């Protein structure tokens, strides 16, 4: 089958459909994932085609959703759980951190926990409180979890396939404001490894590292910088646990400068870890400290302020300038 042009939302939908079709053990669970197809329509049509035994509208209780998904996984199922919005994952946080993340180690590997937790995340859609957050660091810090986020339709399709096929729990952050961005998806391709970063654009003066919704901003920044004669390399991290430091290191040892960009607050965000580790790995290569662009240390602001809060082209280019000034 040739490559098809589709949105990230559609790619996720196709990927879930493929998984349901291929493996009878795959289940979709969550609030409103059935007839409605989810509030973002990611599960659109799946309830109709696979029935309510496979696509399960759950009670409104996130701890219950993840907790029963764990039980279903113990029975041999492969649940793909939808959390409706980033800010609503916290009632399930206990089950994720104390059970999902730790049960495999508790059992010394004698059971498997193939549960995918899908979380539409990030801002930029003008939503009310709790609908625009980026809590990925709160999962990446926790041992026993894997945390990923695609930035484009092809990765959305393939990373979802890989997450579902993984025998480990995977927290799958979906860049909600990019759901309708389109791209080529080749459903016959050989996929890039799930936890490997990709160089999304080559450059020589400075590396921008990002994931999910910020990859697009970084690519735009690189294009704008190119007009000014600056050559920026963009690394799409794709995985926040583990982070593919090798790819970042290779890039940084070429460009000698690194700016990390994410929507989550800078303080203790994934950028902190990347800055710390790359500085350790490439201490003598860096011409400037690793700079970080991200959210501020304030509760996610009301929608009318989110453009000021979220890293955009200007703030990324400002950091690029500051880095290049060293």
């Amino acid at each position, binding site marked *: 089958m040739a490559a098809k042009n589709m949105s990230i939302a559609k790619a996720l939908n196709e990927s879930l*459909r493929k998984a*349901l*079709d291929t493996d*009878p*053990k795959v*289940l979709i669970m969550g*609030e*409103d994932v*059935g*007839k*409605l*197809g989810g*509030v973002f329509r990611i599960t659109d049509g799946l309830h109709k*085609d*696979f*029935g309510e*035994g*496979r696509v399960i*509208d*759950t*009670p*409104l*209780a996130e*701890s*219950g959703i993840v907790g029963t998904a764990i039980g279903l996984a113990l029975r041999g199922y492969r649940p793909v759980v939808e959390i409706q919005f980033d*800010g*609503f994952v*916290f*009632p399930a946080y206990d089950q994720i951190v104390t059970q999902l993340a730790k049960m495999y180690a508790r059992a010394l590997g004698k059971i498997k926990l193939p549960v995918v937790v899908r979380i539409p995340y990030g801002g930029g859609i*003008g*939503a*009310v*409180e*709790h609908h625009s957050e980026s809590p990925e660091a709160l999962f990446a810090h926790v041992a026993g979890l894997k945390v990923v986020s695609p930035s484009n339709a092809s990765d959305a399709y393939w990373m979802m396939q890989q997450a579902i096929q993984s025998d480990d729990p995977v927290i799958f952050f979906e860049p909600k404001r990019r759901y309708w961005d389109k791209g080529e998806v080749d459903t016959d391709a050989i996929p890039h490894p799930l936890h490997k970063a990709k160089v999304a654009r080559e450059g020589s003066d400075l590396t921008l590292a990002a994931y999910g919704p910020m990859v697009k901003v970084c690519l735009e920044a690189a294009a704008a910088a190119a007009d000014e004669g600056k050559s920026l390399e963009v690394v799409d991290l794709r995985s926040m646990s583990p982070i593919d430091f090798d790819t970042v290191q290779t890039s940084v040892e070429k460009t000698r400068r690194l700016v990390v960009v994410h929507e989550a607050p800078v*303080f203790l965000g994934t950028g902190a870890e990347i800055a710390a580790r790359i500085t350790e790995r490439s201490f003598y290569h860096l011409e400037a400290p690793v700079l970080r662009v991200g959210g*501020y*240390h*304030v*509760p996610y*602001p*009301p*929608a*009318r*302020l989110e453009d*000021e*809060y979220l890293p955009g082209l*200007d*703030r990324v280019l*400002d950091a690029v300038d500051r880095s290049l000034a060293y």
Partner: protein
Amino acid sequence: MTVESTAATRKPRRSSKRAGAAKTPQASEPQLVQLLTPEGERIEHPEYEVDLTPEELRGLYRDMVLTRRFDAEATALQRQGELGLWASLLGQEAAQIGSGRALRDDDYVFPTYREHGVAWCRGVDPTNLLGMFRGVNHGGWDPNSNNFHLYTIVIGSQTLHATGYAMGIVKDGADSAVVAYFGDGASSQGDVAEAFTFSAVYNAPVVFFCQNNQWAISEPTEKQMRVPLYQRAQGFGFPGVRVDGNDVLACLAVTKSALERARRGEGPTLVEAYTYRMGAHTTSDDPTKYRTDDERQAWEAKDPIQRLKTYLEKQKIADEAFFTGLETESEALGKRVREAVRAMPDPDAMAMFENTHADGHALVDEERAQFAAYQASFADSAEEGN
């Protein structure tokens, strides 16, 4: 690729039986407390009574009409792009006005995000409710000026805040009470069960008021419960009652009685107001994906406002002048809300660094300064450009 082609859909031996069993108890609905029939007839109830003056009855009607008008205006403002979102209470006016008017000034309310009618009863300026839906704040009103807490979006959380507040009332030796609002969907959240436990154990003066509007976005109540919700209270050691949520008189009577019980030191009550969400979940929702119009039409016959109007007219409690006067008042409210929203300024960008902590936070201060300098750099370069 159909449902038959996959292994997990092989008919489980007992699946149909199981599914059947799950639905049976829900099927026969229990008695509701009702004082005013859908046809506008006043009936008696052995346990609950209200004795209202004509003025009070007209007042309830006015409250419902104005609340609906405000709600309709907000929906329109969302369509016009003035609000980012609106959660309509259409159909739930009686539940909200009935319970809201049962309150004393010193009682306290913990709402969800849909209690615009209760806010109205508390004297909260309706335009205050719109800030968060416009995206200029996350609520921002002072909960203590009307004893009406901020809207809470995370489902169920506020039931615990209400319980804690009620525990505080006991400690203070006061005899006020608290009402915690929540939805049928919220009843599944662990927090709500914990609120039941804490309030029972500490005998806290709190009324749990569930508006069972039959839907949690696209999920009907069968996805949340197997038997009517009001029955849940008993297992936690306090009474539960189901009331006709489209009957403003019954909602008033039942809530008043629960509040009095709380004041007497007898602890919590669960009130399940059986009503219907006539509109979409919010302006972002498309109910045609998951429910039929028939259902809605059946409930339109039970409209809470129409039934009180019929009663007022039949009993000659309200005359034509009252109704036309109210229409004028409605339009004025609509206009005032419209103008207030359109005039609502965007907050200054610096505002996001304010009100994060009462005692300040060094990192916020540092970021505020950096942000200000960054903002200023544009002004500078704009000047340079001159």
